[in-house]
């Protein structure tokens, strides 16, 4: 039973989170996902029209008419739900079609769908590795990879973020293992930088290691034709395991996958617990995702527009005097260093009609608080101009423009 004492204990824990400023509140969006949205924050307050600068809607396909239309048709011809896991009676022709199309798009040997990329990451390591193996991960990998690694029996080790010499030393250290698996995000979600896959693949060949990447923040737009980080670095076909999501650029609904070596994918079909014990991806989502892949395989128009938007935004923020994390991805962190400043800044941006979120410890390291902005192909120039005006106005208010990191820290603390 839920005794008054137990209730009180939970209330106490929640109150502590609030006191520490790590209590998360949902913002309610009262519109389809897009560049312009109507939001209610806090819940119950007056709705406001704001420009969305924090969605993973990189290609602007979340509410695209062709995708919505395909989802409608999928609903009509394959129904709403399957009421089954994949291997009992939950696999339709469209699930196989989507897996085939993902394989083709990513340039791999085979693909298996999961309910989410979180599930793909939670299942893949345990399914393919055993205690004779070692997983060597970049220290900034996504939380879902950390959880997946914890579920596996293989040994764990880590290397400093993108430090290739450190990775090499770990590969040398673990030469006695059956399998060495290098594990990294393709594009890192908090800093927006890319893993150095050209060097990683070279090291993997030198020290006989497998390579795993989570390309959730890259699939659909990084690389000349949007195949992902492996295309960007010219190593298509050399990545053994790619996990990615349908929940970001590829329509943004839900679902994820493990794509890569045929035998690895088959091992997941036999042994990955989130695949075996959760429901199949809904037909409506699968139909939408098939349409997305058709759309972005035909033309690179949307990823090209995203690239132009990214360049404009990075250049203009820098020119205005903000410190941004350098890079080329549409994840553009505006550095403010101080946690409270990042929260105040985000609140003021919202008042100015721009919706972006401040991140601080423990989501990012201490003293590295920031506003993470994300570009979309749904953004038009007028959105970006208005968002920039808001950033400059709020930046002036807090006097952080054309200041060094040390100067900002001197004013607000770490």
């Amino acid at each position, binding site marked *: 039973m839920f005794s008054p004492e137990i209730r009180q204990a939970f209330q106490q824990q929640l109150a502590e989170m609030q006191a520490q400023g790590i209590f998360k509140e949902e913002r309610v969006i009262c519109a389809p996902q897009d560049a312009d949205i109507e939001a209610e924050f806090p819940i119950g307050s007056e709705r406001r029209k704001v420009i969305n600068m924090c969605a993973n809607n990189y290609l602007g396909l979340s509410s695209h008419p062709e995708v919505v239309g395909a989802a409608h048709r999928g609903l009509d011809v394959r129904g709403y739900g399957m009421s089954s896991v994949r291997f009992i009676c939950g696999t339709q022709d469209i699930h196989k079609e989507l897996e085939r199309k993902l394989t083709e798009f990513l340039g791999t040997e085979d693909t298996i769908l999961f309910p989410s990329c979180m599930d793909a990451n939670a299942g893949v390591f345990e399914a393919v590795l055993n205690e004779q193996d070692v997983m060597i*991960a970049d*220290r900034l990998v996504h939380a879902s990879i*950390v959880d997946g690694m914890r579920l596996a029996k293989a*040994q*764990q*080790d*880590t290397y*400093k973020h993108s430090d290739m010499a450190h990775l090499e030393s770990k590969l040398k250290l673990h030469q006695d293992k059956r399998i060495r698996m290098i594990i990294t995000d393709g594009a890192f979600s908090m800093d927006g930088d890319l893993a150095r896959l050209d060097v990683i693949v070279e090291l993997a060949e030198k020290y006989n290691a497998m390579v795993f990447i989570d390309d959730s923040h890259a699939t659909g737009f990084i690389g000349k034709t949007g195949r992902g980080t492996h295309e960007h670095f010219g190593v298509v076909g050399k990545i053994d395991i790619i996990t990615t999501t349908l929940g970001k650029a590829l329509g943004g609904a839900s679902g994820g996958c493990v794509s890569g070596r045929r035998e690895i994918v088959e091992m997941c079909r036999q042994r990955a617990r989130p695949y075996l014990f959760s429901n199949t991806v809904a037909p409506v989502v699968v139909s939408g995702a098939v349409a997305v892949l058709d759309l972005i395989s035909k033309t690179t128009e949307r990823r090209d527009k995203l690239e132009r938007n990214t360049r404009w935004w990075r250049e203009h923020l820098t020119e205005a005097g903000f410190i941004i994390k350098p890079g080329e991805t549409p994840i553009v962190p505006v550095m403010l260093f101080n946690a409270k400043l990042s929260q105040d800044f985000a609140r003021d941006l919202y008042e100015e009609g721009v919706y972006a979120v401040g991140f601080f*410890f423990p989501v990012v*390291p*201490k003293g590295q608080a920031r506003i993470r902005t994300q570009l979309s192909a749904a953004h038009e120039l007028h959105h970006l101009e208005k968002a920039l005006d808001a950033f400059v106005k709020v930046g002036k208010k807090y006097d952080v423009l054309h200041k060094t990191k040390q100067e900002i820290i001197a004013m607000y603390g770490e």
Partner: protein
Amino acid sequence: MSQLKDLILNYVKNEYLEADDDREIAYDTPLISSGIVDSFSMVSLKVFLENTYNISIPDAKATPEAFDSVNNIVELLKEFGVHE
């Protein structure tokens, strides 16, 4: 001066500090609670201790508290028969 403590201290500096990080770390500097080592990368330290001293530290013993300073780690090692 302690040889054992210095060995661990050097490992922590090389393993966790970036080249431009000039933070001073002493025997009693908090490692986990200060954010120098997070719970995920702590595993490297565990692997190092196990390999160096040919011991096996069960997960139940490898707590953030037990790894929170060089002093704490030395205390933990005593349980496995590793002394200065």
